[in-house]
């Protein structure tokens, strides 16, 4: 474990460097995953069968709230990483906790939204359009859910072990993941909701 003091803690060992690099490659694969989901969605978008179309079921209010919650959480986790770089463990933990709470808020609204879709007759079995809509949203939502558990595990570790090269590395990688989910959401917001409502 060679500590290189000119570098941030999360990059300070060789293994840390590998972990971050590997995670970027993983995010590349994730981009392909969502790209495939989006492509399939665009192909199936107008194939609504006997079910409703997007313009009939999308509602702007919950979607706007979700967007606000997730974008804010992405900003807050950025503050968290900034606090980590300054070595302020407590501030960092607080920012991470706020991030996860905002994520939880996002998720609650998304669940509410899904219930609404099923309620208006747009369940996953209704048509090719609803299947691909709910799968794309659901994959993103599942990522957020996974992130909530992952983030909690990281907060607990930082609390227990303090900021070590290992915990800093994990926190940084988690922040990359969280920002990525935000980017995906921006595409969902623009190309699924806004496009569908126009």
């Amino acid at each position: 474990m060679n500590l290189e003091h000119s570098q941030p803690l999360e990059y300070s060992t060789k293994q840390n460097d590998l972990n971050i690099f590997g995670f970027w490659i993983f995010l590349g694969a994730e981009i392909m995953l969502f790209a495939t989901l989006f492509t399939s969605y665009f192909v199936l978008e107008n194939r609504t069968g006997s079910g409703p179309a997007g313009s009939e079921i999308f509602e702007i209010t919950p979607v706007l709230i979700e967007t606000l919650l997730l974008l804010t959480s992405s900003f807050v986790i950025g503050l968290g990483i900034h606090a980590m770089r300054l070595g302020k463990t407590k501030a960092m933990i607080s920012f991470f906790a706020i991030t996860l709470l905002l994520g939880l808020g996002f998720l609650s609204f998304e669940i509410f939204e899904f219930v609404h879709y099923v309620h208006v007759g747009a369940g996953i079995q209704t048509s090719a359009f609803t299947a691909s809509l709910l799968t794309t949203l659901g994959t993103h939502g599942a990522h957020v859910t996974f992130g909530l558990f992952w983030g909690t595990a990281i907060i607990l570790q930082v609390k227990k072990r303090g900021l070590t090269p290992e915990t800093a590395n994990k926190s940084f990688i988690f922040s990359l993941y969280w920002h990525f989910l935000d980017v995906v959401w921006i595409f969902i917001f623009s190309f699924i909701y806004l496009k569908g409502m126009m």
Partner: protein
Amino acid sequence: MEFFERFAIPHPSPAIYASMVVIALTVVAIIAGLTYFKKWGYLWREWLTTVDHKRLGLMYIISAILMLFRGGVDAIMMRAQLATPDSKLLDAQHYNEIFTTHGVVMIMFMAMPFIFGFMNYIVPLQIGARDVAFPRLNAISFWLFFMGAMLFNISFVIGGSPDAGWTSYFPLAGTDFSESVGTNYYMIALQISGLGSLMTGINMITTILKMRAPGMTLMKMPMFTWSTLVANLIIVTVFPVLTVALAMGTMDRLFATNFFTSSNGGMDMLWANLFWVWGHPEVYILILPAFGIYSEIISTFSSKNLYGYTSMVASMVIISVLSCLVWAHHFFTMGQGAASNSFFSITTMAIAVPTGVKIFNWLFTMWKGKIRFTVPMLYSIGFIPLFTIGGVTGVMLAMSAADYQYHNTMFLVAHFHNTIIPGVVFAMLAGLTYYWPKMFGFMLNERIGKWTFWALSIGFVLAFFPMYITGLDGQARRMYTYSESTGFGPLNMLSFIGAGIMAIGFVLIVYNIYYSIRYAPRNIGSDPWDARTLEWATHTPVPEYNFAITPAVNSIEPFWDAKKKKHVLFPEPLKKIHMPNNSGMPFILSAIFFVWGFSFVFAIWPLLIISTLGIFACLACRSFENDHGHYISLEEIEETEEKLGGAKK
């Protein structure tokens, strides 16, 4: 009892019952053997928990050879069925199941792990690294592949084989036309092993880009390492597409969604497109590392450096890009219109150009070289003309207008076997023979090896060239029989004879391994082939830490330079070495994945929920675990080096 009825075989036959007995006996024999020889502890400590890239590589290769025989038996059954007209050996349903499993097993569970085995074993040695970037992730990759393969392989005795072809086109693969759980097995088993492949992709890219020995710039990497890098970039690009396609297929089958159905807006061609967006690059994931192995072998046994290194690299990169732009050539006849057919025709034909560049580079490497006709070299020399024929028929198939004649005929079957067998299978056997002494410390018998090569080559030509003719005459693929009046009988009989000769070749490989274990001399040193790259610069058997001292690299062939040009390979003093700890987690996690997959296949929801929680529990354990690996002390290294014949200089 109602619960157990779902595990019954929907379409049984005496052969399947016999297989059940054989499988049961094998399992009992393995358990009894391990208990009798008290090997459980050894198995757990040395193999099931290992994170060593070399051991994982060996396990990949062993699994691949086992799967080769499973897929080979399928192949023999198909050829036996088709050997005579109106044959009643198999019925249509069994034939469907057999060609499906043959395809899936050979591509996903034979060729892929064989290649992963070589990547794992060779790449860290070639770049002078101690292990891969993420050793434990590497173990998870292997065990996920292994559990996926096992899940797929039990299908024919529990619940029924998949029978919709290895492409599983919808709506055929949907629940309306494939009622048994067979296609569920296909979707879930490929999902699990595909997850492993994706992780290997991430691992290998990180390893190659970040862990090369000092001095090894990108353009000084050995060709096999380059091919591994390019293949893994393709893996990371296209495997997520398969993930999504399989997930949608699973949902269509289990949750009655309408992605690929014929009602409520579903679109069956979406599956075909997604499948081949993954499926076509997949064949380049297989062939590029094979090209890499040929490059190493041809250079070594021509006693020359590789001709046209830069153009080799460039053509691989170009192939990798083009490979993602050709997928629609698999369904020219399915009505996407002249413009897109033309586009995919041209991109497909364009792939012949970089491939041709590589063929000429190999020929020029041999040109005026001092060629040694060893077994690996024979495979490589045999590969060039045979593969070229496969490539040329590929260009024929690429012409979309003409494809209406070839589509879904035996001509196509002949074509892709003509590229995969001399291309990939020969490369794997060449690589196995070439790297065998590095892996096990003795060489495979050359005389038996040459017999094997000739049996496989002659058998291959006899088995597949007749299919070009019957295919052009209109024999459709995947048809379980044909009438005598078609006149296909004699040529199919010839194919059957060829398949038999190939089978003899594969049995000879096993005999060769047995014979060489017993009789081969053990005093062969660490460089028996007079090779050129770093993997031969360390001891045989390779110590746990690969290189006691990280090698210094000056050129594409540092080991050759060390032997001939007085390059100092190991300039630094010995230092203590950091190594990762073994872990049982990858095996346990993957075993839970097996249960997860099984309960998914049969829609046993409570078990699915429990195993899902188990998977997350494993991940949580890993997250909270404090594992910093261990150090190998200086004394220990010196002792090991002494035992292996002194430190390498």
